[in-house]
């Protein structure tokens, strides 16, 4: 089997004095959509931030596309072809929608047909093209965050909870968008609480709890296996009570 696009091996992350990730191990194969699931506080966001270099892994290694990026600086990681949608969306509230997208398109003006496609997915962005992004509604901000990540083709998209705050109809168009991106050969690593959206999309699934990977496998297996679902997602529930 070819080398996976992204590979985490024994990654530990500390934030200040706190040990948050306790040896995270998983791979994201090229071309598919991998779901990262887990209850609140499991360490999903921390994992994505560690990949992006926004937290430094204290040990372990992260390889992307055959390169070791464990110690690389965030801009270099981004330039190697990774786009990131943070949990808090990271919208530049003072800039307009247009300016937010201009910045996301690092290599120059956005390709026209791609822009048409994006604005077709999220018509609200077109409508508020010159509005400061801080004035958008919660869901519209979420759309802008995703639009920014897909403004130019990238090798890998890291997306933290894209469906939160989106109306059902928008969740649908987002699922369509991810499908289209997948078809064009982009790889996606998605953190999601909405298991149903997740199951509709995922090729592979990774489940985290308490800073560790507790399950990894094909999404179809998890969907088919109610017991496993209960154990992974219910298990954490029991443990918490």
């Amino acid at each position, binding site marked *: 089997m070819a080398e996976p696009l992204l590979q985490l091996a024994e990654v530990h992350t500390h934030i200040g004095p706190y040990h948050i990730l306790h040896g995270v191990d998983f791979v994201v194969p090229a071309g598919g959509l991998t779901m990262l699931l887990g209850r609140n506080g499991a360490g999903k966001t921390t994992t994505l931030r560690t990949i*992006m270099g*926004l937290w430094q892994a204290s040990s372990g290694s992260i390889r992307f596309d055959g390169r070791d990026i464990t110690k690389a*600086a*965030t*801009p270099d990681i*981004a*330039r190697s072809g990774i786009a*990131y949608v*943070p949990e808090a969306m*990271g919208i*530049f*509230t*003072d*800039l*307009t929608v*247009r*300016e*937010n997208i*201009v*910045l*996301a*398109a*690092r290599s*120059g*003006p*956005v390709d*026209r*047909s791609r*822009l*048409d496609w994006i*604005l077709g997915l999220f018509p609200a962005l*077109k*409508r508020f*093209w*010159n509005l*400061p992004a*801080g004035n958008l509604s919660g869901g519209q901000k979420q759309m802008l965050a995703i639009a*920014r990540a897909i403004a130019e083709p990238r090798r890998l998209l890291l997306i933290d909870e894209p469906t939160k705050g989106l109306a059902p109809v928008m969740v649908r168009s987002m699922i369509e968008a991810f499908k289209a991106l997948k078809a064009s050969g982009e790889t996606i690593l998605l953190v999601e609480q909405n298991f149903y959206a997740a199951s509709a999309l995922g090729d592979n699934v990774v489940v985290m709890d308490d800073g560790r990977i507790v399950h990894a496998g094909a999404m179809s297996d998890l969907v088919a296996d109610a017991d496993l679902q209960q154990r992974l997602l219910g298990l954490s529930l029991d443990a918490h009570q």
Partner: protein
Amino acid sequence: MSDMTADTAVELPRARTDWLPLLLVPALALLALPFVGSPSTWVTLTVAGLAMGMMIFLMASGLTLVFGLMDIINFGHGVFISLGAYATLLVLGPLAGWATADSVGLNLALLLLCILVAMAVTGVVGAVFERVIVRPVYGSHLKQILVTMGGLIVAEQLIHAIWGASPIPIPLPQSLRGAFVFGDIVMERYRVVAVAIGLLVFIAMQLLLNRTRLGLLIRAGVENPEMVEALGYRIRRLFVSVFVAGSALAGLGGVMWAFYRQTLTAGMGMEVMVLVFIVIIIGGLGSVGGCFVGSILVALVANYVGFIEPKLALISNILVMALVLIWRPQGLFPVARR
């Protein structure tokens, strides 16, 4: 290069330009005419005010970049003005003859050389200043005030140590002295040069900030540096260059100011800082256009008020600021919220 709205298939709404503040300047000038009375005096005052505005703009433009866009309060900005002024000595020393030469060419070349050297010096010192003084305190205004204030004191003392504490007179190149006289109207020659340089800098900055994504990047970087990095931009490097550019602009302003005052003192930069702060606040933090209009406004008002009712000249700046802020609480051209 960034204007992708050009001819996309989707019709995108266009941003509107705000002309109102620009009209303020001619409106003010016209309003002052009846009060001043004599048209020739009015022209003299207006032209002098415009030129003074340009000089203020040159000194303030660097700060509006650094303070307005990068959100760094650099109280040390004044010392870069002083430093730029003192840097002229590096040129004036060996090339003193060019100043007294009876050739416009040589005189202007001298000025240009002074500017280049001063910008180089202040740029380099700015890089060091950023590295040593400012970098550790990004994000905390208060510490910035203290640290840059400390830097200011140290730098001022170093100027004293290097060039001595006494004021140093410097010669204005021969052909830039005196004034053009048309009937009862006088226009100081040096002010004409200042207008030319001010306009040039203004246009260059406008192009750089509006035609490239530089301005956007800086503003985005201030709000959320992590995200800008995650988009693949090396924000640190950018910030350093902006700081250096801001310092070099202060140096340029310092040279112009030095030749205007014809005397160097270590505190000369600090003395104009309140004015500079007022100007960039009137303009709207981070807006180069606003800084430009604000500078001219302040200088014009100072001249008119100084002529019509000198008692008020003492507070004319603060008055202008208060009025502008009542009209537009974020300044003339608020960059943040359009």
